[in-house]
């Protein structure tokens, strides 16, 4: 039974560790790729409960301003980057995420179901996200 589930080698424990090493390597490489290949962000899309509430063109921002998302969140917008300035949740993770300026990197506020997703400069909003 064990061998059928993990057919990499005769010993299931060895296969498990091999697979684990593989996932580790893959994840580490992907993290580095995501961090350094994003490119600059062109637009920011603000979602609340899965619905698009606002689309901001980050290239045309001249002066920084703040944007209220629902009751709980305040987003700060600058040319080419955004950050969550305030959130009313206890964990404050989205605030600690700080500035996001590379395409693809989201800012997520789990308790308030708010997502801010950045996409690339040239392609349309659908060009970057799978």
């Amino acid at each position, binding site marked *: 039974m*064990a061998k059928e589930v993990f057919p990499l080698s005769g010993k*299931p*424990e060895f296969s*498990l560790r091999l697979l684990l090493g593989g996932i580790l390597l*893959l994840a580490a490489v992907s993290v580095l790729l995501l961090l350094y290949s994003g490119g600059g962000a062109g637009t920011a899309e603000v979602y609340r409960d*899965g619905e698009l509430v606002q689309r901001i063109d980050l290239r045309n921002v001249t002066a920084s301003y703040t944007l209220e998302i629902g009751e709980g969140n305040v987003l700060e917008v600058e040319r080419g980057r955004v950050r969550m300035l305030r959130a009313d949740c206890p964990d404050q993770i989205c605030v600690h995420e700080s500035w996001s300026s590379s395409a693809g990197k*989201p800012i997520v506020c789990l308790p308030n*179901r708010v*997502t801010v997703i950045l996409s690339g400069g040239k392609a349309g909003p659908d060009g970057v996200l799978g």
Partner: protein
Amino acid sequence: MKTKQLCILALFSAIALSIWAAEGLIPPIVPLPGIRLGLANIVLLLTLYLYGRRETGLVLAVRLVLGAALAGTLMSFLYSLSGALLAFLVMCLLKPRVRATRVWTLSAYAAVAHNLGQLLTARFVLGTPGIWWYLPALLLSGILTGLFTGFCARFALPLLRRILGGSRP
């Protein structure tokens, strides 16, 4: 269930709950949603190898329900429930294939499953596919934190076996 075992399982549940609550007070080291050390999982691993799956499920259920009642919101309960259930499933699946001295392998898989469960829930709650961006970071952190808690359990197991020697079912 014998009285002594019941006492020890209750004690384990209390320890798991306290560790979980204490960990929640520490500010996040990596500012990404879902990344957590998961120290309470050490207790679950110990229960799994000292007693069995049924007992582990009980400790986990007590930890989840009391944790949500004491410190959580409905949202946080949903996330911890989906993560914990998937991790528990993986633990049960791998337990017969992983020796006690290699418990860190199992722990890493359980942590990865936990993070995957949370990300899946987040995907459906938030409704934005863009959060798959976090997947590699969550996989990586799952393996690293899982290995850490697994090593803790691996070194605590022989000591606890000696102390609880007479209580094995």
